[in-house]
Each structure stands twice: as structure tokens, then as C-alpha cells.
């Protein structure tokens, strides 16, 4: 949708910013806004399925989720939350820059957003890397009971099964993985928009594509806003102790 908005709106056809099927600019703007929000509704439903699986298993396996979550490093999670919230601000600033037709600022804010997105993914990569070394990735490298013999023993006493802790990590990787895929797509779009923005595409009165991109970016942020407490903070706050 975003590229759709762009390619037409940017005036590739040489006449006007209003696409052929629309009568005027307000109609076009409203259509795109509505369309994007509908798309966001589908995203909510899609992540919703995972959120449901999460809720269900957490309800069913509270002890195991607690144990699993204690292996995440809360500092990384908190940092990443900050980074994403900040990137939402910079994205909002980019949208504003496009609205007031300031090309330099547009590119600058998009650039900062891009860097923040990269930082987020970088941190995620570090986290996953540690998980890999620790053997905490189900189906890829799973050595939990090797490295945490005592914990496993302890869990067994509480009647928490072998696979229950794994379930936490399955859900964790599904959710953060899908979120990361969205981040990567978002980064690609931001880069593309920087490129086009630099050529003056969105500061000629056709700022809506940036706004649409912003909607997408903010939604991905919102999803993280929920993921963070759900995944990292189950065992209570312990910022400086990584579970590993």
C-alpha cells in the first residue's frame, strides 16, 4: 500500500498528485488513511493469534513461563523498548517534516529512525546469539537441561515438565521473530523513503506516503509495547541479572 501511495502520488504520470480513480485530494487522502488502518487491523488480528497462544500457555503453564522468562535479559528488553519508543518520536517528526515540506529534516528524521531500528535489531541479534550459545532456541539448539541442571531438577519437583519451559521459548521466538520480520520490512521501507525523500518526493505537497509509513512503524512499536512486559517482566523486575 505504501509503495502504491508513493508511485502514483509522486507524480510519475506527470499530471497531478491525485490518482485517476479519485476525484480530489481529500478523497484520496481519506482513502489511504482508511485503507492503512484496515491493514493495521489485519496486523492486529494476525499478532492477536500469537498473543492468544501466549495467554493460553501462560495460563496453563505459569511456572514454566516464569522460569523461561527469567532467562531473558531485562536490560536488553528495556533498552530496546526505549529505542523503539524513541524511534516512534523520530518517525512522528519525519511525518511532520514532510507535512511542512522540509526536505532536509525529513531525510534527517527518517535517517535517525532507520538507525534506531537497526539498533533494535542489533540488540535482538545479540540476545538471540546468546540464546543460541546457551542452547535456548527450541528446534534449533536446545540444551536447556544441560546448562540448567539444577533448575530442571527444581522444576521437576514442581511437576513442571520438560517441554513446558520450551513452550515459553517457542512462543517467545514466534512473537519476537514475527515482530522482527516486521521491523526488517519497516527498515527497508524507511530506507527507500529516505532515498525518495532526498529526491524531493514527499515535500511537494504529497506527504501522505510518509504518514502511512509512520502508521506502520508506530504499530510495530505498539506491538513491542505489549511484548516487552509480557515476555520480559514475568518474574518481576531484575534489570541487571541476565538469566543466562
Amino acid at each position, binding site marked *: 500500500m505504501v509503495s502504491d501511495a508513493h508511485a502514483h502520488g509522486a507524480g510519475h504520470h506527470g499530471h497531478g498528485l491525485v490518482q485517476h480513480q479519485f476525484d480530489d485530494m481529500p478523497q484520496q487522502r481519506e482513502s489511504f488513511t482508511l485503507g492503512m488502518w484496515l491493514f493495521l487491523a489485519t496486523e492486529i488480528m494476525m499478532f492477536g493469534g500469537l498473543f492468544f497462544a501466549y495467554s493460553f500457555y501462560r495460563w496453563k503453564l505459569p511456572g514454566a513461563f516464569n522460569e523461561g522468562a527469567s532467562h531473558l535479559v531485562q536490560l536488553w528488553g528495556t533498552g530496546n523498548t526505549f529505542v523503539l519508543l524513541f524511534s516512534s518520536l523520530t518517525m512522528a517528526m519525519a511525518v511532520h517534516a514532510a507535512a511542512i515540506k522540509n526536505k532536509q529534516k525529513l531525510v534527517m528524521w527518517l535517517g535517525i529512525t532507520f538507525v534506531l531500528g537497526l539498533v533494535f535489531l542489533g540488540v535482538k541479534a545479540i540476545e538471540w546469539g546468546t540464546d543460541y550459545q546457551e542452547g535456548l532456541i527450541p528446534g534449533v539448539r536446545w540444551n536447556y537441561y544441560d546448562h540448567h541442571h539444577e533448575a530442571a531438577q527444581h522444576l521437576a519437583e514442581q511437576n513442571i*515438565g*520438560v517441554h513446558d519451559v520450551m513452550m515459553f521459548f517457542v512462543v517467545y521466538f514466534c512473537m519476537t521473530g514475527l515482530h522482527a520480520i516486521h521491523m526488517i520490512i519497516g527498515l527497508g521501507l524507511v530506507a527507500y523513503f529516505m532515498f525518495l525523500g532526498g529526491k524531493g518526493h514527499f515535500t511537494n505537497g504529497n506527504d501522505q506516503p510518509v504518514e502511512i509509513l509512520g502508521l506502520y512503524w508506530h504499530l510495530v512499536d505498539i506491538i513491542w509495547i505489549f511484548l516487552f512486559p509480557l515476555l520480559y517482566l514475568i518474574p518481576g523486575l531484575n534489570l541487571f541479572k541476565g538469566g543466562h
Partner: protein
Amino acid sequence: MGDAKTTGAQASTIAPEMDLLYLAITGVAVFFTIGIFIAVAFLAVKYRRGAKVDRSRPPQYNHLVEFMWTVIPLGIAMGIFVWSASLYFRAVRIPPGAMDIHVVGKQWMWKMQHPNGRWENNELHIPVGRPIQLTMTSEDVIHSFYVPAFRLKQDVVPGQFTKMWFTPTQPGTYHLYCAEFCGTLHSQMVGTVYVMDPADYERWLAEGPGQETVAAAGARLFRKHGCSGCHAPNSAVRAPLLEGKFGRPVAIQRPRAGVPLEQVQAETIVMDQRYIHDSIVLPEQEVAAGFRPIMPSYKNRISEEEIFQIVHYIKSLGAASQPQTGGTRQDNTNRLTREDYEARTGFVPSNMDRITGGGRTGNAANGAGRTSGGANGNAGGSTERMTR
């Protein structure tokens, strides 16, 4: 199968009531269907183009009519709902004193165990006139226990117990079907239900001894194929003991070509069905850490069926502290224990405690899949299933 009765037979107490409800709904359906067909045909003919009929002031809407044909179907529907829901609750609420029979479904057969421990496959012998309750679980995928003559079915779900009950009313033989698609031979996961006179049933029950359990068969094979020669505690060969290991982590090494075994990193996996299976046919692939890879491969020397039994035997060793009598225990609780189920199905159904009132206490919901594994690094292959 040829002698099995089907349809007309109303062979359970609930069946006539089901048929009555069915007929009632069918009556409603026929009434509306015929009504609609006749109305459509009549109007289409009467008001066909060119027919000289009164077409003046055709109505566009009429709130009263709309109201009527909203409320009347609603009333009928609610009537059906109340009837069917109350019948349903009678059909699922188990009466006290029902005779308990255990059923295990697996691809693609049914195994039933009677209170005295007698097992049978794909056949179910039951006495007429007595409420019977089935406690069911599955070894692999979802199946569904369906006896049309009883008008009842219930899914058989791995990892959980499901129950159904009925009181047979007519002696005879009836179809037993698996109604939930479960893979290749789904359509052959069928059997026969024999409803017998109580006296006949008692005789039948007495004549067959409790048959050999899977684990017991496995124990026999374990000796026959010489496994015990190495794996027995007092054996001369240095081989790992298998007692108490199932479902627990074991350290292994995956030998790599050109690398001395000593230099291969050890890793931990859970001893599960797949692992045991592969240890038997491909022992050199994952070597128990600290042992020489001297175990011979039994590939093509032992059938899959036999491997299955051996695996179950080894599983039952996982509970070495318990007597290894499998399902043939004859105490008067007539319930299988956790360990029995573990030995039979590879894992303890999650609602074990609630259903059987037995077993260890603890968070029942946490029980699913406690003891079998399989999610380790190389499970990507195609060897994870050997439940045949």
C-alpha cells in the same frame, strides 16, 4: 464386518431419543423446505411474465411480516436448542457406577482394556443393559470413537483423556468407526462392538487371560535379541544402563568423519522414542557419551513392530521403582496409573489426575507430554515417528 448391523439399530438408551430429536428437526426442515419450494414454484408460475394477474401496488416491505418471520424461526430454533442441549447433557453426563473400559487409539487400531485387565484389539465386548464408560486417549494423532448404532461419538485426543458413556440396549454386533481423519488407513481403523448378554460377557471375560502388554512383549524381545547381554546391570560389556533414563536428558556425541570421538563435543538430548529407535537401528549416529560405539546396528534385523515394543519396554524402565506389570494389574481400582499410561502411550495425559483420581498430585494441567521428548537438534529428519 459383514455381520455388523448399522443404521436401523437403536442400540443404546440414548439412540431413540436422538432419533426423535433428529426427526423433529427434520420435520421443521421439511416443513420449511417444502414451504419455500411450493411458494417459489407457485409464485413463479402465477406471476410469470405475461400472465394476466393483479400486480397493482406491489408491497415493498411490511414490518409486521418481517417481524413474524424473524420471531417464528427464532422461536423454533430456540426450541430445538433447548431440547438438543438438554439431551446432550444427558448424553455426556456419566451416571454413577458405570463400568470403566480403557481405550487407546493409535494409527490405525483400537485397543480396549476391560476392568479385569483383558485387552482386545478393534473389538469391544460389552454386556447389555449396563452403563459403560470409556476412558480414552490416543498415542499419536486425534481419532474419534464412533458407534453409529449408539448415536454417539467422542474424539480421542493425544495428551488428554476423553470420556464417553452409553448403555447398550440390544445384543448384537455393531460397527465401530474412527470418525476423525487420522492418516493413511483412517478408513480401516474400524472394528466391531459385540453387545452380549451379561452372562455371556462374564464368560467371555473369564476365558481370555490378560494378554501380553506391549511392554512385556518388549521385555521378552529385549532378552531374545541379546540387548540384556550388554545392557543388564551385571553384564560384562560396558554399556549404558537404561533404567530410569526415559524422558530424561542424556549426554551424547555425534561422531564426525575424521574427528576422533574424544574430540567431539558432547551434547544433551532427551531420551525419547525417536532416540531409542535410532539407537537401535543407527547406534553409531548418536553415541552415548563416554561409551565406545560398539553396539551393533539392528537395522533390518528387528521389525518396526518389535522396535516399538522394545521402546515401550525401555520406557517402562523409566519407572523402575514401580512393578513392571503394565496394564495387567488387577487391583480393584481398575485404573491405570501414570506409569501404565506412560508405558502405553508415551506420555501422561494432562487431565490424568482429574480423570482417574490417581497418580501423583500436582498441577494436572502441567502434565501433558511430561516424559517424551524429541525437539533436539537433528530431529529435522524423518525419523520422529515410529509409533507403529
